[in-house]
């Protein structure tokens, strides 16, 4: 019997997948779903995976509710469930049009659509980490894991059953036997570790539109690499004339007005790699985004030297994305192409606008490194 639904279930999943594939380019360009990211999955609005009916518009309807409150009082968010009679045992009613897709599945779809090769792991060694998983409730355990509600309930049950509960004076005293504790297991997670070092030019010439492009693109890069490596870390570096490491939030929302010295970022990148990510244990992916405007030819030379001598030998792939901006000269990518363009672990991409994000992802990930 349980086999039967799996047929219908996998057909449903197949349909969802097909719809996502068909709309993937749109999702990639617009970054439509980025705002709705959950921890492990993403909600994608899919028109008409639901079966359309003639029905009333959601907000037209309104209805009858129950509870306290004055006329004019707002109802809390989420408290309104537009009522369409949903009969228990009828299997019919409202469906949300949003389908949850795990990031892993999304990465797979992305991989299939863009025909991305699987990444060859440079480091084959496994690093084992441990993860705590709460599995149930036990009668013994450390006090810090005591389950208060269950304990209370147990005590209440016992007192009622033994007749010591007095409704007039509802005092519940748990005894040793009433106590309940959360129990957990340690799980071993074999991991291959990787780190992405995002660098971005935040000087005056990089506008909001440019940053939006970086934000969308980095989401997809993240998703793909996370699919390949279970233990993925991210580090964020912003720079104008000087570089500093920041958190993710700051990374995407900082705007400076100074000039641009790309070497400062590469220097910091080098330090980060040397300090935290020994080649023996880590797969390292620096991604750098700028509008291609550097302070001086001299600084560019420094960048190239650093890349060639210190960075490239330590990383799986170095990627540079140049986002077109009305202010930038766009020179930097030409310099890189000339000097390190033929290195096998360098990926260069020019991103003229949002439409270009889709092919650009392929520029970055197409080498399978």
């Amino acid at each position, binding site marked *: 019997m349980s086999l039967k639904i799996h047929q219908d279930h996998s057909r449903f999943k197949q349909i969802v997948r097909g719809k996502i594939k068909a709309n993937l380019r749109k999702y990639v360009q617009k970054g439509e779903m980025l705002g709705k990211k959950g921890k492990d999955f993403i909600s994608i609005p899919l028109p008409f995976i639901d079966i359309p009916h003639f029905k009333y518009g959601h907000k037209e309807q309104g*209805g009858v509710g129950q509870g306290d409150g004055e006329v004019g009082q707002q109802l809390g968010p989420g408290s309104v469930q537009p009522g369409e009679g949903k009969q228990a045992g009828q299997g019919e009613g409202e469906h949300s049009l949003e389908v949850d897709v795990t990031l892993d599945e999304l990465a797979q779809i992305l991989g299939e659509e863009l025909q991305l090769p699987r990444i060859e792991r440079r480091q084959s060694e496994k690093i084992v980490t441990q993860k705590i998983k709460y599995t149930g409730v036990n009668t013994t355990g450390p006090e810090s894991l005591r389950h208060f509600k269950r304990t209370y309930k147990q005590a209440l049950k016992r007192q009622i059953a033994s007749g010591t509960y007095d409704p007039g004076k509802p005092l519940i005293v748990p005894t040793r036997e009433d106590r309940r504790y959360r129990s957990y297991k340690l799980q071993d997670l074999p991991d291959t570790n990787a780190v992405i070092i995002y660098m971005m030019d935040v000087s005056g010439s990089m506008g909001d539109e440019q940053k939006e492009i970086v934000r969308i693109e980095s989401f997809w890069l993240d998703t793909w690499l996370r699919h390949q490596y279970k233990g993925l870390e991210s580090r964020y570096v912003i720079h104008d004339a000087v570089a500093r490491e920041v958190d993710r939030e700051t990374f995407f929302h900082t705007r400076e007005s100074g000039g641009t010295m790309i070497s400062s970022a590469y220097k910091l990148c080098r330090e980060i790699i040397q300090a935290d990510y020994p080649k023996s244990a880590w797969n390292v992916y620096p991604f750098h985004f700028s509008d291609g405007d550097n302070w001086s030819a001299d600084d560019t030379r420094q960048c190239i030297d650093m890349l060639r001598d210190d960075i490239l030998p330590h990383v799986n792939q170095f990627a540079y994305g140049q986002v077109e901006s009305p202010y930038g000269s766009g020179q930097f990518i030409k310099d890189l192409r000339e000097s390190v363009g033929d290195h096998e672990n360098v990926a260069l991409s020019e991103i003229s606008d949002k439409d270009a994000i889709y092919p650009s992802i392929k520029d970055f990930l197409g080498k399978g490194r």
Partner: protein
Amino acid sequence: MPKSLTPRLSALKDEIEGYARAFGLDFFETVFEVLTYDELNMVAAYGGFPNRYPHWRWGMEYEQLSKGYEYGLSKIYELVINNDPCYAYLLESNAEVDQKLVMAHVYGHCDFFKNNFSFRHTNRRMIDDMANHATRVRRWVDKIGVEKVEDFIDRTLSLENLIDQHAPHIRRNPDPKRAEDEAKSNERVEGFKVGREYMRGFINPSEFLDEQRKRVEDEKQRAKRFPERPQRDVLLFLLEHAPLEDWEVDILSILRDEAYYFAPQGQTKIMNEGWASYWHSTIMTTRALKDHEIIDYADHHSGTMGTRPGSLNPYKLGIELYRDIEERWNKGRFGKEWDECDDLRARRSWDKKLGAGREKLFEVRKHYNDITFIDTFLTPEFAMEQKLFVYGFNDKRNSWEILDREFRKVKSKLLAGLTNFGQPIIEVVDGNHENRSELLLAHKHDGQDLKGDYARETLRNLQSLWRRPVSLVTRYDGKGVMLRFDGQNHSEKKVDL
């Protein structure tokens, strides 16, 4: 796999069944089976029928139920199928007190299924029929191909609410020929009256007669509207008049059958859930409950009865309304004398000790559906006690808010939501629109606009069955609009209503 009851559960079943009978409940034989939560989710996804035709939407349903369970948002305790015998499923992992509660609840449902008038025409062998439907669909899949069949089912499901929800029962064996035959009689063309036979060829030359004949024919064609009256059973109309192939007719009629089977359940949801809740609470609290089970019982009972400000819990509304009726009929708070009494103190202490409450309840559960139930028994006192209100969306504040607590508005909003099972009423008005075999539907607008993108998408599906352009007349923002889909493009034009 479904398991039959353990000896312990079987004993409990006998016990609860005994209480239910002692209270006067009258039900079909009820078969309980025990399922794991995964199996229960599956059966629920199939609408209660484990042997249903294959379709991806059961998979979608299953996914949502499983997720809801995994995230702890929802849990199905029980499932009953209206059939003779009734089938009911218990969740294996439920505690004993829950199983008792569920059984008592199930007997309430089964009594309701057997006795409420809405189910008088319900097919009580639906389990077998559903399995037959599945076999028929599978056979077509083998013959026609899975894609074509699935595609057709997708499009038809989009129309499944277009049945006559309030028809007493499904209309079968339609005879589309009869109306046409009637129209055919009386159509000889005579021409002018001729006095002398030899003049006939001059007065009525054959070209003239042909022309006359053609004119009459045209007029008839134009005058002949079909359907003669607006037809609410759109699916039946399609079955009779759409240019469908055999397999399409078969599948369409299967889906229509199933839609009619579920319709009365939709019309009695508040009554049915209320009745089952009334009985589980009565049986549990007066008979079945052991002292040590009280907390868990109270916990789960209150979980089922919980309300949120922006939605109405049919379990809660139903049980409270039954209890209110019981009290009113026990105390004699009805009839002319009661209605005309405006002494507040007298009303409050009114008790004629009639004790007719229980008897009245059984009568109510037999002769009413949700609409007549609310219409007859919802009183201002009850609405106030239950804190009912009307809510709506405030565009300016972009949020839902309480609009009104006035009794008449609450009641009419409640009834409006129940009319046609909360679905818009849509009828076929013309199957030969503008004499071009186009299909024209009309939405009986009752103050609520249709959801636009859904309406257009549904029209597209309708067109694929009708094969000629289809139009729907409705109203948006108070203005008449005709939505049209011609097979290629959607269009809209203003119409006067």
